[in-house]
């Protein structure tokens, strides 16, 4: 069965690119427009992996990761942060919140797929 990956990003174009790339590679994709949306969608449909932006309205990426790691449904899924922040402290914050890894924007579809393959197996 195809694995389901959620992309949470307030930018339509990024979401579109991520989900297009992943669908082409045979994954199922759930899109969420911000952290809050992501959290409520994850509660109803569990996913195998999350790719999230850090800067989002309503609930930001760090908050989203913290919520997921504290919850029960998808506690152990790999979470990849998508971010333009290359500063170390942001990464550390994400890591502390429980992120599995991060990709710094801009990235190419191949790079995204390589990372997904790496953490999803």
């Amino acid at each position, binding site marked *: 069965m195809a694995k389901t990956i959620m992309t949470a990003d*307030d*930018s*339509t*174009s*990024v979401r*579109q*690119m991520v989900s*297009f790339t992943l669908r082409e590679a045979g994954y199922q994709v759930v899109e969420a427009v911000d952290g809050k949306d992501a959290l409520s969608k994850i509660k109803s449909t569990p996913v195998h*992996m999350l790719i999230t*932006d850090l*800067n*989002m*309205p309503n609930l930001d990426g760090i908050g989203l990761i913290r919520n997921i*790691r504290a919850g029960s449904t998808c*506690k*152990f*899924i*790999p*979470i990849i942060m998508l*971010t*333009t*922040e*290359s*500063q170390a402290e942001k990464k550390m914050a994400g*890591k502390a919140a*429980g*992120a*599995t*890894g*991060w*990709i*710094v*924007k*801009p*990235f190419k579809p191949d*790079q995204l797929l*390589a*990372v997904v393959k*790496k*953490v*999803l*197996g």
Partner: protein
Amino acid sequence: MMQNPRITYKEEAIELLAELEGSLLELEENPGDSEIIGRAFRCLHTIKGSGSMFGFDDIATFTHEVETTFDLIREGKIAVTAELIGITLSACDHIRSLLEASDGGAAPDKEHGESLIASLKKLTGNIADPPPAGSSEYMDEPEQKASDIPEASDISYRIRFRPDRHILTTGFNPILLLNELRGLGPCKVVAQINEIPPLDEIDPEACYTYWDVVLTTNHGANEDVCTITVDIIDDGEGADEEEPVEVRLPNHKKLGEILVEKGDLTPDDVNGALSAQKPIGQLLMEAGVVDPGLIESACAEQEHIKELHRTRQANETISTVRVPADRLDTLVNLVGELVTVQARLSQMAALQNQPEIIAIAEEVERLTENLRDNAMNIRMVPIGTTFNKFKRMVRDLAEELGKNVVLETVGAETELDKTVIERLNDPLIHLIRNSVDHGIEEPDIREAKGKPRHGTVRISATHSGAFVLIRITDDGAGLDREAIHNKAVAKGLISPDVEFSEKDIFALIFTPGFSTAEKLTNISGRGVGMDVVKRNIEALRGSIEIESRKGAGTVITLKLPLTLAIIDGLLVKVGEGQFVIPLPIVQECVELTPVEKAGSNGRDLAHVRGEIVPYIRLRERFLIKGQAPQIEQIIITGACTGKVGLVVDQVIGERQTVIKNLGKLFQYVEDISGATILGDGKVALILDVPKLVEAEVEVAQGTCIH
């Protein structure tokens, strides 16, 4: 289908700009509202982030500066002023004009952008200048290889992977890392479980296991191994240690060996004593000094290194066996004979209808097939070496002609019979020369036609069933159908009022003495080439085909049999004699009725669907005695200039045919290319149809008397 992401990005950016402007205006009213500042920052952030991802680098760079300012505002380091808002608003306009410019609008004033950034910088007062974004952690990592480790040679590593206890709560699966390590080369993994606490103390979410890994790889120490995985989990205690294992061959002799050599002991004594002795691992374990898991990992390492040595030694001995080609030919001949004998055995077994014999015959059949495939495989060599020679040739040729030509090769690893490759060399050289000389245009002409200045010639080799397809593709001028037609008419090869298909027209260039090039060069164009190419390819039992579009290029496809020793043939019967006609040249089989024979008035012509096809009566040609049946069969072949029929008594069917040479005594027999032994032990002759037709034409013209 997905909408072009660039378009989506533009739409989104315009929305974001509107939102940003709204926030800025609101901010002017309430300069201290952190929520509005956050909103403005996010807008800028998204414009920048997505911008660089979809190739709007100018927007990304510019927006980055504005974003930096707002980052400072967000952190409370600078205050919101009317001036700042004014500058940011004009920055919005600038971003918008950059967006429009990418749509083909007027190019925005670059200086304007720079002056905006300058005034922003003045406001922020160089409080902070964070490094520009855009570097990617994962992608940078491989460049930091340990430079002291030579890349290509295999190095064995001893790796202990002891992840942080809480690794599972970061969504990371250690098994994936181990699998990845396994993918790097020969690898042994031993899980260490001695740290797992008793059941009532276990935290089910923690990872207590750690792993000892022995890995032999030619990847650098820090190349791929620890990109995402180790770097991210290294906030725990010592995650990963790597040290090259010194690989030492046990050159020294063991005590027992020395004693035996000196004659002090017999080998049996030593072995007896040794069997009583416990392995060191067991001794240590019993003494309680080490944990069984650790012994296991040490043993695994020992084993791993031993295996490595074994394979290395094996490789050294196996990789170079040079055998003279004629020995291989003998082998292939013998295998061919075996195939024939096996066919007889199978036939006999089927006739006797005894289950035991049938079982044996089937086993022999299976073995023979394997043996045949193996023997054929030995003769196979990759075509790549031939390809490499062409690169140089194309380069020199292009230089001489003042053209820019790139030669691409695909499928260099495709294997073909050695003899085929050797005999393919000249035809390929000719075809590639043709492509470079006639196909690819001069750089200026190419540019005028809207093509890149450098032309591309591509040779590709692919397998297709029992054949190999070799394609020579160029993106040059293509064949001019009209010119070929006119030339053929002028030379009297075809009549002007007959319509020809494109394929037929292109086939004309294989006619001897045909060249449409306006000027002759010393490379090609004298019209002595293509017919020779065709003859060479046909001698290899291959075929040649041309596709071309004027202005776009030409594709020449050579279809060659994988091997010369075994062919697909059509077995036919004339009187008591049996003949094999190579199947690739057979087009169809039709009946020759007495009515038709009478209708052609003894001129040996048959009507096949409105076409007149001349035929050769094999019965007459080979002086076979006996009466022909009422209805004979014509095998229509298309080997040479046109269709020619061969009249036989009976068509038996398709056969895999092992070719045997006729030997010295028959070396001047031209119509027969070889012989094969049939399942019932009889011999069938293999016809060389082009030669047969040639000879017949000569007889008809009276130039040769048989």
